[in-house]
């Protein structure tokens, strides 16, 4: 892509191919001989990181599609089957789900990099616009992918986002019906989203090829912002850029693996572990963290059509950047004012993201409007103005001069920017959880759990006792429909033998049929059967429980959460705290009080619970001292019951947790060694280039 290649294969077979299709020459000139500026910093490795992420997402996505069922009544369950039953399904799903977040994180860094160093300026306008197109495609793909698990946030996110189009004058309603393929979000919507979610990554890959093509025609920009002129300014792509990218990619993979193996739900929403229900809207509909700044812009404008227009404009304005910022100096390094405003703009974006996760009321609305104004002012007022009034410092004459000038202190700005980005990322991540802070409820106390931390394992005794509590108490009203009796004998579970699990199963009566007479009949349970649910359907469950619906408990410890607040959620990332669900379940079981405190009235048929949102819970106090007896001499107290049953329910929510943490450790040991090797190899290769 950088002119005709002088590559001449020596092998006669390769010569034969090369004469007919000069693909080897193309590869050689693009990825081996291609001259890259020698002063690139590590922000330039994000291009390689993004290519890797696209590959990872396509690979894991294609495999997940082999196991996933795009049908409204089965989608949620099929995702659970992938995680529970498919070999390494939990791993593939975690990679794909946190991979989406990593992809966006990398693309934001890549975009801010381009913004800071003026990578959109002549002659790279088309390169930049192709990037904006890729970003738009990524947003569409990410949105449709999030709908596929068909949890509550999937469903309601889809409803809210598709409804954006109803703001279009005259045709709004028809457009929305066309998008849905029905009169509301439903099975046809899920089907087409799946189809498009599968298609779009390949479209992205196509545009990425154009993006790289345009890059190789114009040549890479660089921190000095001056074009490469002589051979002294550049180094060949291989080995210099290759090894540097490899080191950057392996560092990024370390960060990525932290999410995959230790914090798989840190960036997710607990509500998405509740199956989609068209009749109940979650209290706060919050998109994934990477859409939050735009969501904040949408909500800050009181008029619906104007809000939607503003949101789309916020993205489209990026495409006009080359013509809004007409300053001749590319790199902000030599633009004292632009540099400061760039960082202010980064902070504005982070704050908008944080606001997007807040409920739209009071001060947040006003702050949202101010920040929305700042966002647009940066592009439409500030950049055009700066290009006219700013006096840039002189840029170096050549790249080689730039390299020579700074062989001393150059790590300081890197460190400060890295810290700024880390903080930005953390704020973003936390804002999703922040959104649930509306009610000032009592926060469940943090308990000590055997399964927390990087080496956490389930306490077998606790799992067995918890199973007993579930069987004797909870199972009267609550189902456990994702757990089969065979799971009781699985590695990393309660530690029963296959024979014990079979014996446990045979105590249950399972409905089967029809038999040869065409009748349904009951038979003893087998290991392959699932725990039977106590009620045949939702309506029966509601009638028997005074209108309340006892939720299925299989996923309850992942489907419940509470606000951790700033700055706790930042520390949580490092300490791997993710036990909100278990803490909440434990607290609910112990949070009953005979008399509600003064001033709180509880409606007929409900009970006061300190930790339940709104305090009026339909479930009567389920556990009392001495209710269940344990063979191993553990105390027969409510506290013990609560702890054991919660441990058991954590296992039902994630049966492969021990395997996840074990594999995580192995991966980390490998990645750390590998990254170290990459680092030293890079040092060797670059030793003569500085």
């Amino acid at each position, binding site marked *: 892509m950088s002119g005709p290649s002088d590559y001449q294969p020596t092998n006669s077979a390769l010569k034969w191919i090369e004469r007919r299709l000069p693909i080897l020459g193309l590869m050689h000139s693009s990825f081996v001989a291609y001259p890259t500026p020698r002063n690139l910093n590590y922000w330039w490795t994000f291009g390689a990181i993004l290519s890797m992420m696209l590959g990872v997402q396509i690979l894991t996505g294609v495999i997940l599609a082999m196991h996933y069922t795009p049908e409204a009544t089965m989608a949620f369950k099929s995702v659970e089957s992938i995680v529970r039953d498919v070999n390494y399904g939990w791993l593939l799903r975690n990679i794909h789900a946190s991979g989406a977040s990593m992809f966006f994180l990398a693309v934001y860094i890549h975009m801010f990099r381009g913004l800071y160093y003026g990578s959109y300026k002549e002659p790279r306008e088309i390169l930049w616009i192709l990037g904006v197109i890729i970003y738009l495609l990524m947003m569409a793909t990410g949105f449709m992918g999030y709908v596929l698990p068909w949890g509550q946030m999937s469903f*309601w996110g889809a*409803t*809210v986002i*598709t*409804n*954006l189009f*109803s703001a279009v004058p005259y045709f709004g309603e028809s457009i929305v*019906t*066309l*998008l*849905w*393929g*029905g*009169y*509301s*979000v*439903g099975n*046809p919507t899920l089907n*087409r989203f799946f189809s498009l979610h599968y298609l779009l990554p390949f479209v992205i890959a196509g545009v990425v090829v154009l993006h790289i093509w345009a890059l190789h025609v114009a040549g890479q920009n660089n921190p000095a912002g001056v074009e490469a002129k002589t051979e002294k300014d550049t180094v060949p792509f291989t080995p210099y850029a290759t090894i540097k990218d490899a080191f950057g990619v392996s560092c990024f993979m370390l960060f990525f693996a932290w999410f995959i193996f230790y914090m798989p739900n840190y960036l997710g929403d607990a509500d998405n572990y509740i199956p989609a229900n*068209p*009749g*109940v*809207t*979650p*209290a*706060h*509909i919050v998109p994934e963290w990477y859409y939050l700044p735009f969501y904040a812009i949408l*909500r800050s404008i*009181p*008029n*619906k059509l104007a*809000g939607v227009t503003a949101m789309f404009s916020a993205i489209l304005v990026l495409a006009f950047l080359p013509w809004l910022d007409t300053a001749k100096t590319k790199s902000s390094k030599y633009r004292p004012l632009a540099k400061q405003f760039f960082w202010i703009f980064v902070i504005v974006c982070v704050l908008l993201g944080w606001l997007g996760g807040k*409920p*739209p*009321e009071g001060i947040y609305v006003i702050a949202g409007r101010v920040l929305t104004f700042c966002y647009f002012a940066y592009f439409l007022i500030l950049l055009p103005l700066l290009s006219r009034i700013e006096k840039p410092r002189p840029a170096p004459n050549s790249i080689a001069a730039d390299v020579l000038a700074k062989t001393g202190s150059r790590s300081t700005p890197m460190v400060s920017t890295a810290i700024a980005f880390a903080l930005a990322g953390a704020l973003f991540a936390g804002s999703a959880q922040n959104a649930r802070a509306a009610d000032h409820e009592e926060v469940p106390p943090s308990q000590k759990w055997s399964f927390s931390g990087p080496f956490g394992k389930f306490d077998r005794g606790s799992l067995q006792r918890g199973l007993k509590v579930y069987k004797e108490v909870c199972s009267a009203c609550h189902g456990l429909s994702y757990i089969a009796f065979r799971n009781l004998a699985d590695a990393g579970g309660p530690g029963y033998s296959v024979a014990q699990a079979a014996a446990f199963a045979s105590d249950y009566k399972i409905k089967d049929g029809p038999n040869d007479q065409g009748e349904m009949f009951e038979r003893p349970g087998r290991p392959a059967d699932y725990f039977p649910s106590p009620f045949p359907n939702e309506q029966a469950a509601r009638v028997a429980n005074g209108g309340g619906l006892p939720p299925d408990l299989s996923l309850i410890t992942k489907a419940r959460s509470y606000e951790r607040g700033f700055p706790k959620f930042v520390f949580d990332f490092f300490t791997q705290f993710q036990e909100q669900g278990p803490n909440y379940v434990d607290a609910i079981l112990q949070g009953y009080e005979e008399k509600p405190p003064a001033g709180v009235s509880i409606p007929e048929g409900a009970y006061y619970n300190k930790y339940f949102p709104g305090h009026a819970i339909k479930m009567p106090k389920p556990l009392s001292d001495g209710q269940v007896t344990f063979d191993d001499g553990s105390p027969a107290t409510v506290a013990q019951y609560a702890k054991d049953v919660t441990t058991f329910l954590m296992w039902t929510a994630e049966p492969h947790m021990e395997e996840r943490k074990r594999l995580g450790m192995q991966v980390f040991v490998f990645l750390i060694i590998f990254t170290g090797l990459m680092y030293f190899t890079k040092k060797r290769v670059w030793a003569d280039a500085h």
Partner: protein
Amino acid sequence: MGGVAALWPFVSQMNPDASTIAAGAPIEVDLAPIAEGQDIKVFWRGKPIYISHRTKKQIDEARSVPVSSLPDPQTDQARVKEGHDQWLVVIGICTHLGCIPIAHEGNYDGFFCPCHGSQYDSSGRIRQGPAPANLPVPPYQFVSDSKIQIG
């Protein structure tokens, strides 16, 4: 011309298919079991429809407010069937971004949307919040005094 014609099937296939349209046929709802001050939610075309048996107080509240002061001016009389003033039938989808408002909540004895805080009064008219319009009234008629047909 031919190109546009060839394109049409590819766009049109996205619209609701025949079975979806058929499933969206009118439904009948018996009002007799709904006591005064109560409301029920039924589904029609996948949309929740609130049917409220309004109390005298709720009707008076809805009718005493000056229409011109409303964001989306409409009289209460225009939103119910004459002679059946106690019955309010609305599509329970917030006109902002499609969430389902909660009945009997908010400051106006009507509906409250938990997503972005829109509040509707006892006639389902928008009173406060980001929603641009009143809760829509679905097409329906009374087939008898205690039965309606929606659709």
